[in-house]
Structures are given as structure tokens and as C-alpha cells.
């Protein structure tokens, strides 16, 4: 029998899993609060998903348009989320984002400037005013580097290329984490009083995605297996503009900044089709003609916003419909044109990495020709259910922040609201974890049997003589999710998906990774499959339960938002028999003051009447 004391062991007050924006910010906060802090991540430091964020970080600084303030940001967020957001989270986010952005500046971040020398802000879908602080189209890089430098300065323990496999409990409380070093394949045990999950999303369950290999839903699966509840898993955001050609780059993101800076969407007949897809609720705030949209772009404050800047769910569905009705581009997308809208020089300055990306990967010069774009799986609004103030999940001592957590974005996230979410809730989760640790009576001990079982489960894959190829199983899963749990869903398809997932689970139980455990990509892939399958099943089950169309979740058999679902969240958790179960839960009523702001007219908000 494996002797647990022989496994390399570290001890921390708080262990943070994930070194993207949320994890780094959480760890910095814990360290500031005197916690013995550790931070682990699958890749090298600075390579997490956050590095890829392009457009910007949303905060009502009011530098470009003085009319902006937290209330308008809050209202935009709620409207974008189709009023399913946790009210308190959306409030905290809108109130605190400006301070978090200014704090980054104090830590060395260099944002683009306005003519008065202040942090500049750009327009983005669903945001009433120019609100996204940015650095060209590489905002995420600036943010992660700044946080990374700050983390290095704090000097806490950082474990790179170290993957968490399983959360460990002592009784019902968190007691630690079992992981392994990618490099050596050796196991490592972290004893910790609190754990913050900042593991990001799970887009790799789909083939067409903007997500990297890290996004296998590890956080969702680990939380689920530890007994935590997941929430809002049916809301998977398809970003409207991913690359579609060549095939090998399909899914790679084209930032919304292209549309924020004036880019327009055209179908094969060269029509600006978005004018035909303006939802009722947004019609009073959206331009009615190209002429008006152009005036808005030039800064005319009486003009209304172009329809290309409607929320992502709306634009993604519109593109899908254009393509399905035969008005798509040659490779099954639509055209995104910035070339005819801005001088070449300006495009290269404002969107340098888009220019570079298309030039290098698609041999398209975006200053001369339109891009071909189509929807790509981008972001999970759902995740671990957390308390709005402390970010604690339903497992004592387990916290979650960033894309791993649910609630902030409701049924649909606005662009730019993720980076600000990471900063605001990263910090709050750090505060929450530190307070929890301070108040902890006795220190829970890791249950050793669980460690042994986890090690056995992981090593089985290596010791098999025969078995399925993990890459093939993963590809199979991506096909299933793309076909049956895509942008438009139906009961029949979702049920087929569940049957397919059972088959895939059986395949995954028989995978084999040839070779030794040292930096063995097949082994990593095999271990990731478990999390991918939990994630895929949670999304599918939740999608089946929600019988309406809201935000990013579209059911052909239940079109339109339904009043009875407005205050309902779908909860996913592990049942007593070990099978996944769902439950529909009524959300708390909002405080009157917040509801008044969310439902206010923009005129009343601007005149400060709410």
C-alpha cells in the first residue's frame, strides 16, 4: 500500500489553483493579509488564458465619457446577463472595478491614454459608454504581466507546471489538494486550510473554441467531485467572431474591439444584416440606420449605437442564421470589414495583433480585405456556485473566482467584464479565504485513503497494456458537443448527447497512455478527460432542464425568455448514488434599490434620478 508520507508535501494556509488574473489577484491578497500562500498552475507563469485577452477591462472610470458611473455599468451588466446575474455580485463588480484598474497602474501597468493623459477607454458590445481600459489589443498580456510581477515581489510559493488532480477533504471541510508535476510525473500533496479555485473554463470540450488546452474544466470537475454545487452551466458563450479559415485556426478569436472601433458585419450580399436582428428590448438604444450608426462612431452623442455592438448572444445567433439561410461567406462564416472603415495606418495602430494574426495565419491583410468570421465557444458563465460576498462555494474552505465561479455574468457576459471580474472577485476571494482561515477552529486532516485512491486512479492509465487512445476520445467528445450541444439546442439532441456521453465515459475509463509519466502528453490528455466529461455532462443536463431561451442558452423548442424562468437557477451536483443530478432553485429577490437601477431608463440614470 502506498505510504502517503512518501509523497512530496507542502503546507499552506491558502492554496490557490490557477495563475490567471483571478488566481494571481487572489494569491496577492492572501499574501497581503499575512497568509502563508501557495499558487499552482498547469502551464508556466504568465501563460494562462488571461494572457490572450485582447479588447480590454471594463470599469466605469468615466475618463472618456463623464456620464459613466457604476450604476450604468451595473445596469448594462444586468441587461447583458438577461437579469439572471446574482445582483450583489454585479453590484460589487461595478462598484469596485475602477479601483482595481487604478491599482494595476500603481503596480506598473501602462494603459493607453486619452489626450488629457488619463487611462483611455474604448467601446464594446453592451456597454453604454466607452468603458474598456485597454492596451491596444493585448490588454490581457499587460494585466497578467503586471500581476505576475507583483506576485514575484510578494515572494510566495509558486508551483509551475503542476496540475491539481483532486481536492481533498477532512470531514466535510477542505484539507488539501493532490497534484502532479508535469515534468517528472511525480505526485505532490498540498495540505491547506483553504483552497481558491481559479482554474478558468472548459471550452476544450468543443472543437471550435477560442480556448487553449488548459481549458478542460478541471475546476468544475474537482469542485463537483468534492461535493460543491455548480450553477448556470447551461450558459456557454459563443463569441460571434472567431476565425473560420484556414481550418487549422478555426475558432481563434477576433476581438470585439474590431467592431468597437467601427468594424461592420456583412453577409454574402454585402448587407449589414445586424439591422435586421435588433431585439425589442434594445431597439430604443440602437441605431436605426447606417447613417445614424456612423454618426455615433464619430462621437455624436445624440446618435445611438450600431447593432454590431449588441450583446454577443444576439450577434452570434444572427450570424448563425445568415449562414444557415445561405448568405454566408465562402468558408461558412460572414464578413467582418474594418478595411473600408478606417485608414490602414489606424488599423495597424489600434489592432496590431489582429493585423498580425490574420496576416500570418490566414494571409489576409485586414487593412485591405474583410475577415471571415463565425461563432466560437469562448466562455463559461456558469461554474462553482459561490456566496456573493465571500466567494465561498458550498464546501467549507473551498472558494472560487474568475471563470471558474458562477453568478457574476448571469445568462450572458459582456466583453471586458471578465478581466474586471478577475480583479474584483480574485481579491474578494482572497479576503474571504483569509477570513475563513483566521476563524478556523481545528485544522482538518487530509483523509489518506482518498489520496491513495486518487493516485491509483491516475496511474492506472499508465500501467495498462492495451486501451483506447486518449486523443481519439477527446476528439470524439468534441464532435458530440459540437453536434448536439451547440449554439442552438433542442431536447432531442441534448438527449442524444447524454447517451453519447455515457459511451464516452466508458471509452475514457479504458484509455491508455504509452510511455513513462515524465512530461507525457498522452497521460496529461487522459487525466484531463475526466474533467472534460464532467463538464460536458453538466452543461448538457443543465441545458436540458432550462426550457426557455435566455442569453447564451437557445432552445429551438422553447423560443424566447419565459417569465417563470427569470428567477430560476439550475444547480448541478453529485447525488447520493454518485450520479449527476440537477435541481431548479429560486433566486433571492433583489434589494429594491438595485432593481430600480437595473430597470431604470438611461435618461433617469444620466440625470441621477435613481
Amino acid at each position, binding site marked *: 500500500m502506498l505510504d502517503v508520507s512518501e509523497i512530496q508535501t507542502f503546507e499552506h494556509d491558502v492554496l490557490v489553483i490557477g495563475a490567471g488574473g483571478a488566481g494571481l489577484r487572489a494569491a496577492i491578497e492572501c499574501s497581503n493579509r499575512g497568509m502563508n500562500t501557495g499558487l499552482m498552475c498547469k*502551464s508556466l507563469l504568465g*501563460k494562462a488564458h488571461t494572457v*490572450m485577452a485582447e479588447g480590454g477591462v471594463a470599469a466605469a472610470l468615466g475618463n472618456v465619457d463623464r456620464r459613466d458611473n457604476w450604476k450604468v455599468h451595473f445596469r448594462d451588466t444586468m441587461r447583458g446577463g438577461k437579469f439572471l446575474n446574482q445582483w450583489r455580485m454585479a453590484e460589487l463588480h461595478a462598484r469596485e472595478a475602477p479601483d482595481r484598474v487604478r491599482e494595476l497602474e500603481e503596480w506598473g501597468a501602462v494603459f493607453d491614454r486619452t489626450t488629457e493623459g488619463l487611462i483611455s477607454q474604448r467601446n464594446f458590445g453592451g456597454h453604454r459608454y466607452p468603458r474598456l481600459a485597454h492596451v491596444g489589443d493585448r490588454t490581457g498580456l499587460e494585466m497578467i504581466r503586471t500581476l505576475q510581477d507583483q506576485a514575484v515581489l510578494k515572494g510566495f510559493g509558486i508551483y509551475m507546471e503542476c496540475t491539481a488532480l483532486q481536492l481533498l477533504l477532512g470531514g466535510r471541510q477542505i484539507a488539501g489538494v493532490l497534484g502532479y508535476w508535469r*515534468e517528472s510525473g511525480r505526485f505532490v500533496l498540498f495540505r491547506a486550510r483553504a483552497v481558491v479555485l481559479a482554474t478558468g473554463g472548459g471550452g476544450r470540450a468543443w472543437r471550435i473554441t477560442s480556448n487553449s488546452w488548459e481549458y478542460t474544466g478541471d475546476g468544475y470537475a474537482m469542485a463537483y467531485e468534492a461535493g460543491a454545487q455548480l450553477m448556470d452551466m447551461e450558459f456557454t458563450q459563443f463569441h460571434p467572431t472567431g476565425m473560420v479559415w484556414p481550418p487549422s*485556426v478555426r475558432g*481563434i478569436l477576433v476581438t470585439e474591439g474590431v467592431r468597437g472601433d467601427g468594424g461592420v458585419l456583412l453577409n454574402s450580399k454585402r448587407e449589414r444584416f445586424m439591422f435586421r436582428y435588433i431585439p425589442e428590448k434594445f431597439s430604443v438604444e440602437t441605431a436605426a440606420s447606417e447613417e445614424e450608426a456612423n454618426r455615433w462612431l464619430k462621437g455624436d452623442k445624440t446618435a445611438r449605437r450600431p447593432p454590431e455592438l449588441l450583446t454577443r448572444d444576439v450577434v452570434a445567433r444572427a450570424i448563425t442564421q445568415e449562414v444557415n439561410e445561405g448568405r454566408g461567406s465562402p468558408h461558412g462564416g460572414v464578413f467582418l470589414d474594418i478595411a473600408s472603415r478606417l485608414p490602414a495606418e489606424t488599423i495597424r495602430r489600434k489592432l496590431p495583433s489582429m493585423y498580425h494574426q490574420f496576416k500570418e495565419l490566414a494571409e489576409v491583410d485586414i487593412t485591405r480585405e474583410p475577415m471571415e468570421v463565425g461563432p466560437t465557444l469562448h466562455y463559461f458563465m456558469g461554474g462553482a456556485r459561490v456566496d456573493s460576498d465571500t466567494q465561498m462555494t458550498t464546501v467549507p474552505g473551498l472558494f472560487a473566482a474568475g471563470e471558474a465561479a458562477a453568478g457574476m455574468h448571469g445568462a450572458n457576459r459582456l466583453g471586458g467584464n471578465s478581466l474586471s471580474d478577475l480583479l474584483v472577485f480574485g481579491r474578494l476571494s482572497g479576503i474571504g479565504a483569509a477570513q475563513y482561515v483566521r476563524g478556523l477552529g481545528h485544522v482538518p486532516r487530509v483523509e489518506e485513503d482518498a489520496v491513495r485512491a486518487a493516485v491509483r486512479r491516475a496511474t492506472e492509465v499508465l500501467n495498462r497494456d492495451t486501451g483506447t487512445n486518449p486523443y481519439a476520445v477527446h476528439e470524439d467528445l468534441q464532435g458530440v458537443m459540437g453536434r448536439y450541444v451547440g449554439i442552438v439546442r433542442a431536447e432531442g439532441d441534448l438527449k442524444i448527447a447524454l447517451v453519447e456521453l455515457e459511451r464516452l465515459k466508458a471509452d475514457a475509463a479504458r484509455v491508455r*497512455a504509452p510511455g513513462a509519466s515524465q512530461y507525457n502528453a*498522452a497521460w496529461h490528455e487522459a487525466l484531463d478527460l475526466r474533467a472534460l466529461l464532467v463538464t460536458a455532462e453538466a452543461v448538457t443536463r443543465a441545458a436540458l432542464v432550462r426550457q426557455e431561451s435566455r442569453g447564451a442558452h437557445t432552445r429551438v423548442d422553447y423560443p424566447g425568455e419565459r417569465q417563470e424562468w427569470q428567477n430560476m437557477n439550475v444547480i448541478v451536483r453529485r447525488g447520493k448514488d454518485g450520479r449527476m443530478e440537477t435541481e431548479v432553485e429560486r433566486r433571492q429577490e433583489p434589494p429594491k434599490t438595485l432593481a430600480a437601477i437595473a430597470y431604470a431608463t438611461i435618461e433617469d440614470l444620466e440625470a441621477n434620478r435613481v
Partner: protein
Amino acid sequence: MSERLFRIWRGTAAGGSFVEYRVDVDPGMVVLDVLHRIQARLANDLAIRWNCKAGKCGSCSMEINGRPRLACMTRMNQFGGAEMIAVQPMKTFPVVKDLVTDVSWNYEQNRRIPPFRPKPRPADGQYRMRQVDVDRVQEFRKCIECFLCQDVCHVLRDQSRKDAFVGPRLMIRLASLEMHPLDTEDRVPALREEFGSGLCNITRCCTEVCPEQIQITDNGIIPLKERVVDRYFDPLLGLVRKVFRRK
């Protein structure tokens, strides 16, 4: 679709050799796509680092036909039809396995650099900077830490002087701090003594391989060297500057 011949270095710190793989290549593919295909079909345990597949994270650095490059930004159609493609790990860093190297040295150097020390905020709480001043440091802050410049720099690669010179990546990190409009720290003495700015002899090889097209040498290293020379060859100028600090 066409078949291509790849030679990939396989092995560990203990040694290794090139192994040949024949693989189908589709139009539009980059080298990283082909490596993934080889991994999925022919060599399941092949070790590669990658994340973004779009030249943004700096993970997939390797040497392709002898040139340090990002595999995700190297298109297959730039190689001649019959050309064999040889892929090996970065030479300057110790091999972990196959195409993965141990780049921890770079992180250690970064830790030695005196951190950003900002001016206090003005009374209204708003830092003000002009875009032109910001442009200069933003160029350096574009760095994706791919370490290709470190790989190619002969001081580190051929002369193995990692003990004396931090290399071009860390030089532009120093430049990004030294030229930051809000920073008040003085790193000039350390530049010469601890970070070895004198060892760079301006060959510009680093600038040539930088996927972010940062003018490492001309905009970063040379101005830093000038600061060192000013300070140390002209004590009077150095003194004046210390008193009237200019950034």
C-alpha cells in the same frame, strides 16, 4: 493534403536523437498543428508546450530548421515542397523532454530586478501620462516571454555566460522599468554590475528573432548602455543626473 517528412528531436536530459515521422499536412497548417497531429497519431507521449496557438503566449518556442521560432506562427507553406522539416528544442536551455526545455533560469533572473517604484499619486488621484511617452515602454511590454531572443543570444548560447549577463529579454524588461514615466527607482549601477550590460556587443540577432518585432537592441539595449556609459564615464554628468533626476 500532402505528405511531409518531419525529423523531431526526441529524448531527455540524459540524451536523445532525431526521429523521423511521415505525416499528412492540410492547407493552412502551421508547424504546431503538424506536431499535434504527430502526437495524436504517431507519438502519443511527444512533449510540446503550447497555449494560445496565436502567437500571444510565447509557449511554443523551438528551433525549426535551425531557426528559433514559435511553432504556432510558422506556416507550413513557407517550406519547399520536398523540404524535410527538422524540429528541436531551444539549445540555450537544458532539455526536459523532447521539445520542452527548462526555462526557469529566466524567471530567476526576473526576480533579481529591482521592482517598479511609482511616484506618489497626484492630489486628484489620477496619474497622467502622455501617449508618446507610454508608446516607448509599451513596445517593451509587448514581450510574450517566448525566450527566443535568449536562445539566440551568443553570450548565453555559445559563451554560456548565464552567470554574467541576463540576456536580451531581461534587458528589455529593465528598459521597460527604466523608461516607465512613473518609475523612480535607479537601476543603472546594477545594469552594469549585476546584469552585465557590457557583455552585449550589439549583434542584433535577438531583434531578428523576436516574434513581437520589438527593437530589442536599438530601442532597448543601446539606450540602456548609453545610460551606463553616461553615468560611469562622466562622473560629473552622473552626479548632475542624480540630483536632477530625469526619466
